[in-house]
């Protein structure tokens, strides 16, 4: 692994050099009713637009690698025959500039299902393989529990990672492409002092995590508590609105809808990200619904993330970004739900 | 000379809403010429009672699908007048721009889809798709442009979503505005061709001395607020609208009727133009002259031409407004609203004429009394008198039943009546 340090003002040069590609980064989108800024990942054209000290974005950068709706293919119909056209909707590499560790880890988790398992999906692969990621360290927010999920640092899955040392950035380089871009900046090798400063910064950051989830034996506890009454408690609150999945950087469930064009000569197959909380998610042909109650659907979301995925990949499908809890109008948060399943006082 | 004639048009087509025409001529005398409004009432004025102010614009937009923007803006203005809120310059400009685009889309819809088939001898626009594709495409292009503008400014072309008391929920994208301006500029060619098309139509030769009521322009062609004026010399401030409208109920109509100095008066494009010709954009004045329209014109069929002239005016004025809006920095999008007890009146020129909304609110901003006076309801009496005169006129000329029926239908259509709106 290669480490470098750069003076802060050098970063603009890196940005400029990367601008030959499409660059996506955190910008301020507006503010809420109390004046608190709201951040969002958007395509940026100007370094000054970037808000690298952003707290957290309401939405992950998901739409740039797992769009909410995506055309899987189109058809041209001719009589009883047809031609199918597939387009992965990506023509140029994208730069994600300023991802936090949780969001990088989210990509790593998605890779497991979408890239490394049976039937890797080319729609995701085409975007993921054409991505240049500049990570940046974060300021833990009250709702972040990534430390509990082991995702507070990103070990891989990025090209470059920046840590703010005050006047300088500590830069971790993980790809040849990233190394190649170093020539656009003035870099130096870190000194022992830089190392110490880095460790101090990280330690100070760790101190700031407030929210926690106890994952000890969680897969077994979830199994034992399958019939627990707490699920009903949360189910009564749940709006079945799918907001949690929509803002989750790791939720990837989807539905497919085929449409015929008005001219009856074209058709398309569209993919829409769904959520397992939606009422008809587990409905099958004939109308039978395997999860008709809101609590069974909500429970399923937790089982998929914290049990099933762990069984399959030895890790949970949650990076502890806390977005779902923040976005949920019914105030259903992961730390509280898990604590309640563990019979802990909240 | 025609001795007898029986005309019964049930549910007149190509107008908004339900109305019937009955004409009876016996021994050359018109014994009955009746414009019947059979639309079902929806009681918006009662519906609003007890509702908080924020409901009013949202609900009142639903009085009419064609002029929902006009109703929404009138309703907003009535609430704002009640609470003493003065819209910022930016808000006022955006509202006017939105208003213009509604005028454009409504006029184009009427001219091409509802009125033109009569002049081109078809029953609807559908056959024109084959026989006159360029005409239909031009109409679609203009309508699309107007609708796109409404989407960008009001959020939605019909039942707008961004227009609220105090301003807007959200501002349009300047880049999009700029694109619309460019499209507006190129649309002038389409409007010129529209003028040529209408110049080729034989506008029936009929006129009847009429009193015309509209807003009075002060420095500009009037659309939102101001004083009220009639060609018979009446002039009143906005909040004395009741004396201008004098609504009353009549048999055979679920809509109320109006009168002023005479038995009836007219509102609409022709009325606006008759009262404010000098304020029209020069290129609009030119089109008017080219089509033989000069104030004061008393031929109701010329309302079609007046609409076309107004299309030119609103496009020109929209271009100016967009220039001004994009040149300025965006200001606060929405003002704070503090309800207070009182009465607010709004007079707004919507495509079919002058529209009034008036609400009385209590100190919490809850509506205690609501009144809406719709342009078409002000026109009903005039339509009735026009039909009478028209039947008389053409009976004397010895026209056939068919001809009289078509002329009567065309006459009603010329007013572009919005019947469900008039009954609300």
């Amino acid at each position, binding site marked *: 692994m290669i480490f470098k340090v750069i003076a802060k003002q050098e970063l603009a040069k890196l940005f400029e050099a990367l601008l030959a590609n499409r660059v996506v980064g955190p910008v301020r989108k507006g503010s809420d009713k109390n004046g608190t800024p709201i951040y969002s990942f958007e395509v940026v054209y100007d370094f000054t637009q970037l808000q690298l000290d952003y707290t957290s974005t309401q939405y992950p950068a998901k739409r740039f690698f797992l769009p909410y709706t995506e055309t899987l293919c189109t058809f041209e119909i001719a009589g009883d025959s047809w031609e199918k056209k597939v387009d992965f909707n990506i023509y140029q590499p994208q730069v994600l500039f300023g991802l936090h560790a949780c969001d990088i880890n989210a990509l790593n988790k998605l890779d497991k299902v979408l890239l490394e398992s049976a039937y*890797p999906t*080319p729609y995701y692969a085409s975007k993921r393989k054409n991505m240049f990621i500049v990570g940046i360290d974060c300021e833990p927010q009250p709702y972040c529990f990534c430390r509990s999920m082991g995702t507070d640092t990103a070990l891989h899955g990025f090209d470059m990672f920046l840590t703010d040392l005050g006047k300088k950035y500590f830069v971790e380089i993980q790809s040849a*492409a990233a190394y*190649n*871009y170093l020539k656009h900046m003035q870099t130096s090798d870190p000194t022992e002092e830089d190392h110490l400063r880095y460790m101090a910064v990280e330690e100070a950051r760790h101190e700031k995590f407030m929210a926690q989830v106890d994952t000890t034996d969680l897969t077994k506890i979830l199994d034992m508590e399958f019939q627990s009454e707490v699920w009903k408690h949360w189910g009564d609150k749940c709006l079945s609105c799918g907001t949690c999945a929509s803002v989750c950087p790791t939720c990837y*469930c989807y*539905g497919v809808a*085929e449409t015929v064009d008005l001219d009856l000569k074209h058709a398309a197959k569209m993919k829409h990200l769904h959520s397992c909380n939606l009422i008809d998610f587990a409905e099958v042909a004939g109308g039978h619904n395997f999860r008709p109650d809101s609590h069974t659907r909500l429970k399923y979301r937790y089982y998929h993330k914290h049990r*099933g995925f762990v069984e399959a990949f030895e890790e949970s499908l949650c990076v502890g970004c806390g977005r779902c809890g923040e976005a949920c109008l019914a105030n259903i948060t992961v730390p509280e739900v898990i604590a309640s399943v563990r019979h802990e006082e909240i | 000379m025609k001795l007898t004639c029986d005309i019964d048009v049930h549910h007149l087509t190509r107008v908004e809403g339900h109305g019937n025409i009955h004409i009876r001529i016996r021994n050359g005398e018109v014994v009955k010429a009746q414009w019947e409004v059979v639309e079902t009432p929806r009681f918006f004025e009662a519906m609003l009672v007890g509702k908080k102010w924020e409901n009013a614009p949202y609900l009142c937009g639903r009085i009419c699908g064609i002029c929902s923007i006009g109703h929404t803006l009138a309703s907003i203005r009535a609430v704002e007048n009640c609470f003493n809120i003065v819209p910022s310059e930016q808000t006022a400009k955006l509202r006017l721009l939105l208003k213009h685009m509604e005028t454009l889309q409504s006029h184009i819809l009427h001219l091409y889809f509802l009125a033109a088939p009569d002049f081109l001898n078809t029953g609807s626009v559908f056959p024109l798709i084959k026989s006159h594709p360029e005409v239909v495409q031009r109409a679609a292009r203009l309508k699309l442009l107007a609708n796109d503008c409404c989407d960008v400014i009001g959020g939605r072309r019909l039942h707008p979503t961004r227009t609220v008391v105090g301003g807007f929920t959200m501002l349009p994208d300047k880049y999009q505005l700029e694109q619309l301006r460019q499209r507006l500029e190129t649309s002038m060619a389409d409007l010129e061709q529209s003028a040529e098309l209408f110049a080729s139509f034989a506008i029936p030769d009929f006129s009847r001395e009429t009193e015309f009521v509209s807003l009075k322009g002060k420095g500009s062609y009037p659309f939102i607020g101001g004083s009220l004026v009639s060609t018979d010399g009446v002039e009143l401030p906005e909040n004395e609208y009741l004396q201008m409208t004098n609504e009353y109920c009549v048999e055979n109509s679920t809509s109320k009727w109006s009168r002023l100095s005479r038995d009836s008066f007219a509102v609409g494009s022709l009325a606006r133009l008759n009262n404010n010709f000098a304020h029209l954009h020069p290129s609009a004045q030119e089109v008017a002259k080219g089509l033989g329209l000069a104030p004061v014109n008393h031929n109701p069929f010329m309302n079609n031409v007046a609409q076309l002239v107004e299309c030119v005016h609103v496009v020109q004025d929209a271009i100016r407004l967009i220039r001004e809006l994009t040149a300025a920095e965006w200001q606060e999008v929405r003002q704070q609203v503090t309800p207070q007890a009182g009465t607010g009146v709004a007079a707004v020129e919507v495509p079919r004429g002058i529209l009034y909304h008036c609400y009385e609110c209590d100190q919490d901003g809850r509506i205690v009394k609501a009144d809406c006076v719709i342009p078409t309801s002000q026109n009903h009496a005039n339509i009735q008198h026009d039909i009478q005169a028209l039947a008389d006129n053409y009976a004397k000329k010895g026209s056939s039943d068919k001809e009289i029926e078509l002329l009567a239908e065309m006459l009603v259509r010329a007013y572009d009546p919005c019947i469900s709106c008039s009954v609300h």
Partner: protein
Amino acid sequence: MERLEFVDVLKEERPEAPRHDLGSFEYTYKAEITNVYPMTEQEKLYQIQIIDPEKRRGFTFRPGQFVMLEVPGIGEAPFSISSSPIRRGDIELCIRKVGNLTNFLAKVKRGTQVGISGPFGTCFPVEKMYGQNIILIAGGLGIAPLRSPTMTVLENRSRFGMVEVIYGAKRPSELLFTYLYDMWRKFDINLNIIVEEPDHTWDGPVGLITEILQERIGALRDVLEQETYAIVCGPPVMFTFVCNMLMAAGLPMHKMFVSLERRMHCGRGKCCRCNVGSTYTCLKGPVFDYWSVMNLKEAI
């Protein structure tokens, strides 16, 4: 400014190359409906042939696996392959009209082109059953997935001990593959068919499938604990009853196989629609042994 290199994922050399080619994800086989046989009011049998001869020969599957069948613009859904694996890319699907896609399929004529992808999912481990007795049980449309293992068993008849087929339907008019029964019987198998609501054409047994099973279990009791496998297809209520009866009679859970049905939008372990608990039916299933089913939450 400097451009990053663009990676075409379909051409990329991948040393970690996963089991399946990226390109095949959305490139279905174009296939032609070569024949349509109406079987009952609700079900038709479709013969479908992959058009490209090479791909047709390369298309191999095992009994119990399913394909995703797509009609452009209408829909895509999973269907078990009903025919024998010997016939490779020339398959038969028995399809009941229940909704959008299947209603449309009921209207298409031979010659229509459809998209086929697959085969997907797990299969009935027929080879593992060599040398043993086999009970094949189907309720209703369950005969569609059951026909393929049945054909395989019959094609390899000498490798199995006793073969017992039990099939139940509501009415005689709803029985599927009636034209095959006589042929099947020639293979020294015990074919039991039972209906719930007989009509004048029916002279066979009447009742629920469990009733005839009870009878047969009596005859088979001795072999159940040791040398027998069962394959059970049908609606969840039916296979739960049947499996529990077999279990009570001594057949171990891991020697019974069932096929689960869930909504599937991809068939490739991506859309999560088919998950039972958090197990993908399309990858780990649709064929499960009964032990696994018992251990899946909300499987039935």
